[in-house]
């Protein structure tokens, strides 16, 4: 079997059986990165030498019998995780000179488990975007192509678009992502991958460049639910360095994969059947419902009445938090600086040159909704509606064990589409944002192809800290869907 077709579970087995060494596996992936990244732009920074060093250490651990499920597994790290000694840009010009002297908790845990880092994956600037077109380091190309139009470049989704493209094109075995309003799930859906946003508080935010602190959550993106479970086992856990980290025990998520769905109650929210939604998406959703019913789940119609307000709440709360978090980029102690005639002029020139258009728009919206005279009308109001959205989920989870919805309202779209105004782009997140606002775990799994040959995902939403049920349902969908399609552009 080609090293590019392996899942994490298969690669770990092959490494233990000495069918392949970690150095051989990493060398193969380093080569694939060098060959395909110039085209896909999935990585902002590649670290082939570091990867090789880590692979050598992994081989030593394998030999000593001290290996974990991730030892020697080559992965991509979203360039939002601070990595000691490796430039971390958040896809922004303002952080272009930044080399962190410390390691984020999540990347440190993966490092400690023996994972090999191939490089830092591209993303939307400060994770603000749904198509990976706001990166200061250029857009990412989706390795999937429309059947009838193989020349058209499609977006990989965002913000974790580089992570998604890298795993889909087999130039990483798996990747880390972060999700604030759908940034793991939507790109996973656009590239035929599995990806989970865990419960808010499950993975430490320490050392992740902050976007919207009450929503940001790290998670894995991989070829299937099992690989996501293996990664989440290593990434999750309490961290005293993150004030909102949850002191919850971390179960072995892989154990949940084979639980099945027999007897589970699966909620189908009426409000996600939006008018004008692509009929292919709705048909796939119906298929997903049928698969779960066939496997013994009980399908329950539910209502999440405030769903339609999710995006509006999100586009007040997230920019408000972003405007506060990004105030630190002032050009004084680190990052890029543009000199000015006085202090304020220096700040203004530094931030005008250092931030891209989408980041500036969100900082300005955030500044406005927090400003004197508008705080109550916008920010406070949004926080109250956010409470109603949380209540919707709490009520629903009184009746059901998990919720099934589509992940995104469309398949991957073309580079340059949906650019008419910012709101058109924001609508991509309509199905993913509510779970983010409520802090509940949610996973996207590939469930089929559309008529153009592009992957579509289904989303499974669970109760707070019940990722296990999410994994059980996702694995059941995965099994029924038998998704085996591969993108046009990939390492072979």
């Amino acid at each position, binding site marked *: 079997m080609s090293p590019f077709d392996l899942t994490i579970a298969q690669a770990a087995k092959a490494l233990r059986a000495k069918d392949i060494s970690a150095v051989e596996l990493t060398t193969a992936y380093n080569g694939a990165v060098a060959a395909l990244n110039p085209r896909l732009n999935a990585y902002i920074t590649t670290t082939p030498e570091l990867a090789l060093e880590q692979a050598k250490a992994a081989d030593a651990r394998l030999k000593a019998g001290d290996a974990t499920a991730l030892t020697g597994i080559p992965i991509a790290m979203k360039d939002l995780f601070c990595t000691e000694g490796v430039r971390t840009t958040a896809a922004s010009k303002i952080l272009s000179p930044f080399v962190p002297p410390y390691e984020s908790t999540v990347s440190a845990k993966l490092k400690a488990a023996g994972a090999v880092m191939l490089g830092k994956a591209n993303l939307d600037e400060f994770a603000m975007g749904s198509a990976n077109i706001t990166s200061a380091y250029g857009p990412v190309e989706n390795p999937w192509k429309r059947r009838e139009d193989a020349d058209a470049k499609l977006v990989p989704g965002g913000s974790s678009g580089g992570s998604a493209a890298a795993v889909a094109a087999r130039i990483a075995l798996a990747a880390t992502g972060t999700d604030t309003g759908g940034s793991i799930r939507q790109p996973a859906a656009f590239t035929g991958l599995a990806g989970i946003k865990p419960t808010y508080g499950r993975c430490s935010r320490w050392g992740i460049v902050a976007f919207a602190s009450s929503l940001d959550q790290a998670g894995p993106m991989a070829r299937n639910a099992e690989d996501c479970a293996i990664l989440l086992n290593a990434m999750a856990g309490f961290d005293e360095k993150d004030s909102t980290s949850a002191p919850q025990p971390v179960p072995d998520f892989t154990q949940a994969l084979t639980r099945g769905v027999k007897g589970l109650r699966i909620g189908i929210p009426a409000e996600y059947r939006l008018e004008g939604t692509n009929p292919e998406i709705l048909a796939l959703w119906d298929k997903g419902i049928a698969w779960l019913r066939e496997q013994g789940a009980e399908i329950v119609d539910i209502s999440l009445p405030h769903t339609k307000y999710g995006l*509006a709440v999100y586009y007040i709360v997230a920019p408000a938090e972003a405007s506060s978090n990004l105030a630190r980029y002032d050009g004084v102690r680190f990052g890029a600086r543009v000199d000015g005639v006085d202090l304020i002029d220096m700040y203004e020139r530094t931030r005008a040159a250092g931030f891209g258009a989408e980041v500036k728009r969100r900082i*300005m*919206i955030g500044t406005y909704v927090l400003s004197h005279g508008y705080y109550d009308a916008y920010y406070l109001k949004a*926080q*109250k*509606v956010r409470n109603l959205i949380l209540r919707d989920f709490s009520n629903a989870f009184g009746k059901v064990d998990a919720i099934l919805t589509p992940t995104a309202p469309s398949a991957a779209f073309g580079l340059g589409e949906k650019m008419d105004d*910012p709101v058109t782009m924001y609508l991509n997140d309509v199905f993913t944002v509510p779970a983010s606002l409520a802090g509940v775990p949610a996973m996207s799994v590939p469930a089929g192809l559309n008529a153009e040959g592009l992957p579509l995902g289904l989303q499974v939403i669970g109760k707070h800290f019940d990722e296990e049920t999410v994994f059980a349902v996702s694995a059941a969908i995965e099994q029924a869907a038998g998704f085996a399609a591969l993108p046009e552009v990939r390492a072979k």
Partner: protein
Amino acid sequence: MSLDAATVRRIARLARIRVEDAEVETLKSELNAILGYVEQLDEVDVDGIAPLASVVQLGLRQREDQLSDGEIAEQVLANAPDRIGNFFAVPKVVE
């Protein structure tokens, strides 16, 4: 309610982002599109609903009042644009 050019300039000033004259009209229409979209929240009745700042219901933890790190001046200063000894050398920030 929609923003006028003067308000866009005021917000940019508050956000410490320099905006050129030629950018104001575009920004105005983009920001107004976003504010126009979020105005649908006006139709939601939130009487008696508490604002939700975080889904984590925990109080803030307090750590032991003990030194846990330090003596890492080189790391702290690693990204300083300029330094004098163990200090950041920065433009004049107090006027």
